[in-house]
């Protein structure tokens, strides 16, 4: 397969440009009257550019050849033209044609806009087929044109692109067509996998092993064009082409066969062919006996004849070397055909006699292996009556078919063999018989047939392979193979086997040459002696050579066998992966189509109601929801593929567990509230708050379970999230159990079995009314597995579900050992919360630090107990009150308690919500401090320490300033003044500061810097070109894991909770507000930089 193609197509666009230039030239050039003279021969200037196969030898001293060259020569026979060849590259020649500096140029496609500048003859000089090619690993794209929907198809920016667009429009296929200016780029894009499908000329595979031809989608004629200034030449060309088509109608097609037939030899197998190859390791060949040179069984019972060369040659040429070929001989053609149909053999050879009879027999006939004339064999003079009766070998049905087709009126007499047929002719029982052209000469040389004459018939008879109708894969392989080995191959070998046709006995010879026999005998004797001596010497030498050759051959064979084994192993692996991928894609298609349909549908609806603003808004909202769903699906798929390809790694860092839990609460709070669900979060026995884990992934797991709980629990339901530390047997490891429980719709038992597999959902989204990708739980499970943990589920349909995730975590440096604090020893505490779990958990923590807690579920009871304690002079030293309690809210409770206790006793409000809105009211009511739920030990100690050590809010109390020397910050900020301030602050703390003015610059800087160069990024959110969220997303997906996991802190003037959530959701580690709060900045930096 040649890579060089006609350069014409590459220059179509250039052509258009030149055409315009040509128009200018045209004005200056008028037809030259002198050329119009009719001479016997005239010299015509042909633009001759080098192009493999098409037009070769573009130099003065080179031998010219090629499709175009032959075409010029043939034309000269009709026009009497003499040629002057002008050599250059195509584009230069094209310009010369426009300028009238050359007269002819070959290989131009017809373009309407060009017809005004170039002389197009009415007939083309050739035709090019366009083919679509896909990757052989792509199982999704098939010969069904619909499978091209949504594919990326690359095509040369040329006439092929027009043909492709016509085809796609005609088939109503929505594919993404990408045009390329030259083949190099197109091939590169295809090879790299950027393109799903490539449109190209010929079979289009260009020797690519990984390419597979889909189908031809169009074709285009190309022309031998004249310069516009020579209408005389155009007229002569037209008339020559007309003459040529009348006198030699097949000239163009035979030229095409001669030069481009090899294009189907590409190794790009079609689907059928590949299927056959994949399912067969043996090829059973049936052959006709007694039919040399085609086939026979030799004296030792082995196959002989062309068949034993042609079949292996075909498969070797196709690169299919591990096929085991077996042969069985048949005396009778009919039996052989019957066995093809009975699947006893895969292929029969030879078959022939024409398409009609092959259809009757239920077989496909391959391309001709040999096309030979049929010889009529008769005795005496050839007359009209010679063909009146035929002897036919009853074991060679091909002969019968041939005679029935070509001599329908002849009488036919059957004989058991061709010898019997020939004898019948000799004996005058019939007037003639036929012999295949390759056989006739040698058979008739037998002395017995000396009296027979032969005469060639006008019609060739083809000898082909026969396979059962329906076995398309094998048929195509054979056809392809026959073309590859070429028409001459079999004929060239036939002489090897024709010897056997002639039994030229000694008696025959003596009878033939009585006069010279004596002389010959003597000479023969002398020769034999000389020969024997010579031969003996030669043999010695040969033996040594042969042995060496044999060894080499064996070594090569072993190498080959090894290669084959490796290849077949790889094939099996690839096929397996392919199947998995197909299943995956099938499952995906539905999930992707659902939101996509919604988007498409609502877009159309919006377009048709464009004037109704309300309605359009509504549609846009629905489109947005579907888009988000689609995006989350794609994100899940990407996650899943990262997991499956083993690319997902855990980035373990120091994590403060309370942060994780509080962040989660913040994120889900709004959904919980808007769905009117009740959320309980509490902790139990959590001692180790600082652990080492991949925070992002832990978040992902818990968030997924919590979101599911919210999703599958109807309004008014309850969700509880508990974090429990279980005793651990190994040092330095804490076993955490996360329980997420809801009283939602639950799951069937069957579904619980498959919930952790990819693409499962209890019901289709349309049935359950709940959307989801079906990948979430599979991802969750995979992440938990990677963390060395377990995940289990207990669920009952209609009652709810409970997921339990157990993860062993390494404990980081400092451990919050339960320590009794002397100041608290023996002090009393009152805990009021409507959730008993919370009460128990808080009380157990209080006890651990040495306090004596009591608890109640009711606000009113808390007031009574407080009063009672005062009365009993055993006052509580601290109150921990839940904000929201059913009977009486926390603030009111505090207000009432404050009435009879002093101002100095701390009252702490425990809440699962943001307390900013109620802070003022609460402070006025007498609240000392706030704590968010769930309460962790460290937080409890902090909050208790504050009121006891100082009554003033100590948030201004700055930590000892840390020296950040040697640490480097990337400051991403678009405002120069903010840059200056931040830079100053950061430098003052010892940081080195580098600045990027927007998201794009930040990503470039990160890419360019070595990993570990920066310790942290401070990221503004609102920036031109690319905002901070997108920049973070892109940094998080950098290939270098160290770079991708750099701490990123959002710095924004939007101090809203939802912005903080968004920042966390894109993978930021923290959120700072503008204007800069310097202590807060330093605190955050201190936390995030080790």
């Amino acid at each position, binding site marked *: 397969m040649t890579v060089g193609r006609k350069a014409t197509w590459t220059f179509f666009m250039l052509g258009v440009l030149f055409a315009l230039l040509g128009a200018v030239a045209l004005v200056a050039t008028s037809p030259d009257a002198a050329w119009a003279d009719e001479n016997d021969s005239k010299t015509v200037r042909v633009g001759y550019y080098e192009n493999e196969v098409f037009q070769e030898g573009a130099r003065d001293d080179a031998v010219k050849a090629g499709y175009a060259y032959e075409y010029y020569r043939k034309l000269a026979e009709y026009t009497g033209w003499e040629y002057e060849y002008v050599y250059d590259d195509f584009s230069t020649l094209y310009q010369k044609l426009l300028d009238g500096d050359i007269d002819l140029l070959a290989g131009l496609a017809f373009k309407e806009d060009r017809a005004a500048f170039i002389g197009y003859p009415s007939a083309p000089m050739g035709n090019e087929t366009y083919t679509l090619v896909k990757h052989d690993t792509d199982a999704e794209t098939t010969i069904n044109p619909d499978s091209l929907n949504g594919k990326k198809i690359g095509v040369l920016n040329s006439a092929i692109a027009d043909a492709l667009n016509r085809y796609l429009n005609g088939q109503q296929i929505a594919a993404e067509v990408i045009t390329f200016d030259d083949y190099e780029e197109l091939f590169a894009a295809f090879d790299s996998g950027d393109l799903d499908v490539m449109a190209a000329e010929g079979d289009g595979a260009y020797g690519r092993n990984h390419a597979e031809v889909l189908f031809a989608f169009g074709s285009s004629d190309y022309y031998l064009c004249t310069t516009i200034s020579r209408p005389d030449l155009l007229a002569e060309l037209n008339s020559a082409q007309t003459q040529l088509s009348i006198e030699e109608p097949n000239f163009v097609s035979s030229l095409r066969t001669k030069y481009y037939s090899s294009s189907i030899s590409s190794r790009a197998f079609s689907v059928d062919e590949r299927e056959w190859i994949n399912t067969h390791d043996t090829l059973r060949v049936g052959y006709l006996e007694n039919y040399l040179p085609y086939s026979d069984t030799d004296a030792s019972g082995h196959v002989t004849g062309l068949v034993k060369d042609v079949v292996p040659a075909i498969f070797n040429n196709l690169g299919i070397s591990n096929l085991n070929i077996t042969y069985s001989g048949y005396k009778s053609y009919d039996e052989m055909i019957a066995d093809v149909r009975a699947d006893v053999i895969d292929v029969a050879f030879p078959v022939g006699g024409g398409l009609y009879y092959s259809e009757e027999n239920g077989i496909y006939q391959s391309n001709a292996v040999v096309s030979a004339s049929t010889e009529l064999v008769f005795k005496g003079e050839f007359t009209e009556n010679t063909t009146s009766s035929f002897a036919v070998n009853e074991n060679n049905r091909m002969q019968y078919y041939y005679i029935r087709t070509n001599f329908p009126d002849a009488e036919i007499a059957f004989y058991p063999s061709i010898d019997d047929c020939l004898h019948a002719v000799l004996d005058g029982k019939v007037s003639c018989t036929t012999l295949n052209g390759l056989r006739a000469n040698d058979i008739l040389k037998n002395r017995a047939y000396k009296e027979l004459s032969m005469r060639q018939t006008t019609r060739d008879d083809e000898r082909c392979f026969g396979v059962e109708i329906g076995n398309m894969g094998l048929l195509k392989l054979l056809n392809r193979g026959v073309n590859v080995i070429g028409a001459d191959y079999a004929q060239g070998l036939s002489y090897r086997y024709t010897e056997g046709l002639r039994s030229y006995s000694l008696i025959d010879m003596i009878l033939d040459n009585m006069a010279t026999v004596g002389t010959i005998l003597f000479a023969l004797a002398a020769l034999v002696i000389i020969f024997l001596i010579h031969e003996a010497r030669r043999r010695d030498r040969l033996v040594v050579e042969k042995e060496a050759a044999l060894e080499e051959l064996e070594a090569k064979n072993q190498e080959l066998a090894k290669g084959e084994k490796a290849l077949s192993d790889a094939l099996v692996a690839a096929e397996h992966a392919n199947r998995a991928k197909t299943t995956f894609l099938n499952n995906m298609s539905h999930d992707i189509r659902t939101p996509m349909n919604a988007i498409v549908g609502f877009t159309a609806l919006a377009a048709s109601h464009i004037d109704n603003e309300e309605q359009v808004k509504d549609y846009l909202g629905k489109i947005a929801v579907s888009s988000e769903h689609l995006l989350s699906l794609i994100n899940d798929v990407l996650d899943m593929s990262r997991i499956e390809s083993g690319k997902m790694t855990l980035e373990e860092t120091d994590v403060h567990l309370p942060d994780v839990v509080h962040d989660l609460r913040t994120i889900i709070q709004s959904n919980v509230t808007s769905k009117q669900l009740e959320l309980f979060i509490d902790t139990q026995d959590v001692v180790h708050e600082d652990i080492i884990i991949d925070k992002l992934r832990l978040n992902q797991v818990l968030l997924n379970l919590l979101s599911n709980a919210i999703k599958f629990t109807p309004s008014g339901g309850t969700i509880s999230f508990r974090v429990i530390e279980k005793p651990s047997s190994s040092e330095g490891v804490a076993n955490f159990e996360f329980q997420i429980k809801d009283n939602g719709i639950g799951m069937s038992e069957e579904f619980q079995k498959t919930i952790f597999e990819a693409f499962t959902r209890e019901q289709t989204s349309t049935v359950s009314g709940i959307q989801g990708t079906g990948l979430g739980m599979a991802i969750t499970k995979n992440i938990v597995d990677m963390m060395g943990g377990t995940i289990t589920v207990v669920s009952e349909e209609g009652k709810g579900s409970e997921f339990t995730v157990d993860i062993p975590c390494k404990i980081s440096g400092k451990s919050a050992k339960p320590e009794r604090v002397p100041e608290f020893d023996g002090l009393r505490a009152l805990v009021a919360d409507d959730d008993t779990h919370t009460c128990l958990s808080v009380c157990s923590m209080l006890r651990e630090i040495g306090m004596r807690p009591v608890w109640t579920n009711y606000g009113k009871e808390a007031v009574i107990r407080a009063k009672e304690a005062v009365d009993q002079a055993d006052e509580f030293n601290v109150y921990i009150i839940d904000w929201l309690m059913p009977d009486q809210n926390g603030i009111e409770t505090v207000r009432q308690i404050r009435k009879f206790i002093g101002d100095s006793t701390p009252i702490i409000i425990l809440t699962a919500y943001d307390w900013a809105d109620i802070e003022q009211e609460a402070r006025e009511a007498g609240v000392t401090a706030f704590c968010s739920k769930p309460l962790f030990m460290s937080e409890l100690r902090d909050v208790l320490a504050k009121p006891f050590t100082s009554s003033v809010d100590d948030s201004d109390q700055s930590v000892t300033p840390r020296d950040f020397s040697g640490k480097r910050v990337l400051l991403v900020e678009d*405002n120069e003044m903010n840059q200056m301030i931040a830079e100053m602050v950061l430098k003052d703390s010892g940081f080195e500061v580098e600045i990027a003015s927007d998201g794009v610059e930040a990503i470039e800087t990160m890419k360019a810097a070595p990993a570990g160069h920066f310790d942290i990024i401070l990221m503004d959110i609102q920036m031109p070109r690319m905002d901070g969220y997108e920049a973070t997303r892109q940094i998080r997906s950098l290939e270098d894991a160290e770079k991708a996991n750099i701490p990123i802190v959002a710095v924004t*003037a939007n101090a809203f909770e939802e912005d903080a959530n968004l920042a966390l959701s894109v993978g930021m580690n923290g959120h700072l507000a503008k*204007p800069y709060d310097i202590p807060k900045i330093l605190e955050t930096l201190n936390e995030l930089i080790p």
Partner: protein
Amino acid sequence: MTLDDLIAFGANVDEGLGRCMNNEGFYLRLVESLKGEKGFESLKAAIDAGDLDAAFEAAHALKGVLGNLAITPLFEPMSEITELLRVKEDADYPALVDAIMLKWNEFLAL
């Protein structure tokens, strides 16, 4: 311009200085350079043209700078208009901008 001028104008000089590590020269240089800020004109032009998106961008950027330098008399109305523009609330923007421009001219005269 001196710190006293700024205090008289109503700026929270302590806060601004604190942000500049109490480097008076640096702080004053930044505040001085604020006078070259083109954002106010952009904000006014955007409001006049009714382009609330452009107005939001301008106001948002100014808010950040003014906040950092603690130029309270400008920062506060800027924060207000920014939040209104963020949600494109139906408000008398020209009046708000006029008030800001009045303060701005006052600042320029310092």
